[in-house]
């Protein structure tokens, strides 16, 4: 009997092999082929980290946080007087947060650092806007993303984390697929031209079904897992919408071009930013463990 991560990884390898073969045989468009090739990399890296254990997963997500924050801050209007705050966020706050995740004591008290540093820069022009930009980056890219490895139990139980990542990403892919195949009505035309009502409904429903089917990864029964998957998919959709609004405002389509076919790292994890904290909270609340983000 395979372990949980190995079962999931083998299943994903089968799905990707089919997608790759289908791409070669029926000649999918270039962007789709690139997307599939990138998925091999994503699953390879993430899978290896999970098999290596909890520390490797925490280190991997610290790296993802770093890249995502790099992309996020590049689109802000922070200027040279904010450099000290930016460097501190990336070099001190970020590792500190993941160290706290490592010892199972994650909180968000480091959010107090940025306003102080920006005040100390002596430059008070647009103080509130600059602080808000840097803090938004810190919340989205550090606190929210660190909720993913925080799900990895200290008993090396990776099931719930795999459940979250799988349902979130599957709902993203399904939203894209349903949108491509059946998309007619734009759901938020002023924010994102690619999101459709059909994609949204199709993705939410099939992600709920997928989650119910994957209940064995979690401590829940199938109906409970289905409800949680529904919430994850909904939160993921909203996360994507929020990030699209930021990109729209700044006049870019993707955060960067780090992942061929997908765009930037933040384009890949934007939905996780919203689904992870919510799922972490619900999991702990339902298990009457101490709530997350509190000491």
């Amino acid at each position, binding site marked *: 009997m395979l372990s949980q991560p190995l079962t999931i990884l083998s299943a994903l390898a089968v799905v990707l092999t089919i997608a790759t073969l289908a791409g070669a045989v029926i000649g999918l468009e270039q962007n789709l082929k690139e997307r599939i090739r990138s998925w091999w990399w994503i699953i390879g890296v993430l899978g290896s980290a999970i098999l290596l254990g909890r520390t490797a997963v925490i280190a991997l997500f610290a790296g993802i946080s*770093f890249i995502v924050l*790099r*992309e996020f801050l590049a689109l802000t209007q922070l200027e040279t007087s904010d*450099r000290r705050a930016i*460097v501190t966020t990336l070099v001190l706050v970020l590792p500190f947060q993941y160290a706290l995740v490592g010892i199972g004591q994650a909180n968000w008290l480091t959010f107090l650092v940025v306003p102080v540093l920006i005040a100390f820069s002596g430059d008070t022009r647009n103080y509130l806007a600059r602080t808000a930009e840097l803090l938004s980056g810190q919340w989205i890219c550090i606190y929210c993303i660190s909720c993913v490895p925080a799900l990895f139990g200290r008993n090396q139980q990776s099931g719930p984390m795999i459940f979250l990542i799988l349902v979130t990403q599957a709902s993203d892919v399904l939203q894209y697929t349903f949108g491509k195949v059946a998309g007619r009505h734009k759901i938020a035309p002023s924010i994102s031209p690619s999101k459709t009502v059909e994609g949204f409904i199709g993705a939410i429903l099939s992600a709920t079904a997928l989650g119910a089917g994957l209940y064995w990864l979690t401590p829940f029964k199938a109906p409970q897992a289905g409800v949680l998957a529904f919430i994850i998919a909904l939160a993921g959709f909203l996360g994507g919408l929020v990030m699209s609004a930021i990109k729209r405002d700044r*006049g870019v*389509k993707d955060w*960067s071009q*780090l992942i061929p076919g997908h765009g930037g790292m933040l384009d890949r994890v934007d939905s996780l930013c919203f689904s992870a904290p919510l799922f972490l909270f619900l999991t702990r609340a339902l298990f009457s463990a101490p709530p997350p983000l509190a000491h």
Partner: protein
Amino acid sequence: MTITPAMPYLGTLGLRKESIRTRILRTAVAGSLIGVARIVTGAEARWVGCAPSAATRIYVANHTSHADFVLLWAALPPSLRARTVPVAAAEYWNSNAIRRYLANQVFRSVLIERDRVDRRHNPLASMLHALDDGNSLIVFPESTRGPGKTLLPFKCGIYHLANARPDIEIIPVWIDNLYRVLPRGAILPAPLQCSATFGEPTRLAAGEDKQEFLARLHRTVEQLGSPSCSVSR
């Protein structure tokens, strides 16, 4: 008119004699600089107007930071790096031993004297020498680091270069965001995503005079940096 090189140009890698130790050190230094550039900036290359090519080219880029060349280098495919060298200011890069080592050994820069008063030799000669050796050049025609978002006026050296070698493709390049990573006077870089956008190749047009050419090139580089260009990528 015979023109004498301003500085002895050190020549391409293959032609150069160096001990194994020097070579290992040089490769390690170059590799770490590129590694740091990738970690700090992502060193993203956007080939919007042309594809990477082994042909000899002149890259014309905006200048905002001392790290400009390293970012461009990191953004180029590895196979092109060994044959792409920057044109840089001699008085800055010769001012201490570390800079001298980086400029001469690692980047193999074509060092030119910026200041016309002190100039004893024609800087064009060293650039032509490097081009004729099969190197692509990276030129910053603003000649000094600009404020970041806007371009300073171009100096005329690039015109003379284009005039002397009219067949070589000139690639406009816009380096985005690096001025926030390592602005003037900063020592520690602040990690932010940066990119180099490579535009459509251009050449000196027949009958185009110096002012027209410089103004056109200036506009081309500027347009690469305008937001509409990054959206349609």
